[in-house]
């Protein structure tokens, strides 16, 4: 039986079984004291949350710190968890709040120094690198800078809405639950965001 499918090693057979369990059911078990269920939830959602936060704050170190705060708050709140909404809605709600607070606190200015700091991952690896030539690498780096700058120029909620819509493939209703607004407000946010992105990125094709 294979072991260690993730950094903390949840065996693959348990992961397969757990994928059949809904998040809410797992979280209710966490509420009842089951630590293994928390590990399964962490394994399932660690990546999406970190990646979402990375694209929000554009700093890998900060993204991981905020992601840990998200899961810490989930863990601390386990005693009163009630499945009134989808688990991922709750999770991304906490993540979005933390990211928006971080951005609003102005730490983004300090983070600007590390906008090209990819925590050991070269910028070229953040784009699908089709070739090893220096010139193409430079082109990719330039594209990446434009993409990151375009996303960073979006107001916080528009940014969050686009990232959830594009990368998490959330429906409007779930994004509305995360952002605490109506579906029509989400559509308005998204359409304004995509309009801005079209103006900035359409030439990249």
């Amino acid at each position: 039986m294979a072991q260690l499918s993730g950094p903390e090693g949840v065996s693959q057979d348990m992961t397969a079984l757990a994928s059949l369990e809904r998040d809410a059911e797992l979280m209710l078990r966490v509420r009842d004291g089951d630590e293994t269920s928390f590990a399964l939830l962490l394994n399932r959602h660690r990546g999406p949350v970190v990646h979402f936060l990375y694209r929000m704050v554009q700093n890998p170190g900060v993204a991981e710190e905020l992601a840990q705060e998200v899961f810490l708050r989930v863990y601390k709140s386990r005693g009163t968890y009630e499945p009134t909404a989808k688990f991922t809605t709750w999770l991304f709600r906490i993540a979005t709040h933390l990211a928006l607070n971080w951005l609003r606190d102005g730490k983004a200015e300090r983070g600007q120094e590390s906008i090209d700091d990819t925590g050991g991952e070269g910028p070229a690896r953040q784009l699908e690198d089709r070739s090893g030539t220096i010139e193409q690498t430079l082109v990719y780096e330039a594209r990446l800078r434009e993409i990151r700058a375009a996303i960073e120029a979006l107001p916080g909620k528009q940014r969050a809405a686009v990232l959830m819509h594009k990368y998490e493939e959330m429906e409007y209703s779930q994004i509305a639950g995360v952002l605490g607004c109506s579906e029509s407000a989400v559509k308005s946010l998204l359409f304004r965001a995509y309009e801005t992105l079209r103006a900035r990125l359409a030439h990249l094709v």
Partner: protein
Amino acid sequence: MRCPIEAGNEKTLMVALTAGTLTPAEQEALERHIDECAECRRLADEQKAVWSALDAWTVPTVSEDFDRKLHARIAVEARRPWWKREWDSLLHGRFSWKPVLPVAAACVALFGVFLVHNPVSLGTSRTAPAAVIQTQDAQKVDVDQVERALDDIDMLNQLDAPVTTPHGSPAGS
């Protein structure tokens, strides 16, 4: 199909087209229209370009010690004195004050009855429940923030108020 730009739903449809959330029939109808309509084609191409650009933005992998650090933070949290954890829970609203209020009210009422039969010069018990309410609510209401929010909301409301005058008065009239 009617041109989405004329119908006013071009944004919805183009985003849905690139996100792949249209039904097969809707997608086919839209793509047929795009073939014939230059404006819609331009819009669709731009939206697809954005989608491609965003697709190309991959992210660093999560660090190997993420879980270890998280569990370390959980362990630190668990080692905090119980009163600090409870205070934190109070601030974040986990603990429900609901059962305490009726008890406080009952105690005050009974104490009041006791005082009627055994007068003692204590003056402030009747304000205790209100002080508790004030304290617990004041902890969660930052008046400065609320004041600023109300000012801003009033400002936005004034700008959004329905217009009542007719059009066209020239400048300076």
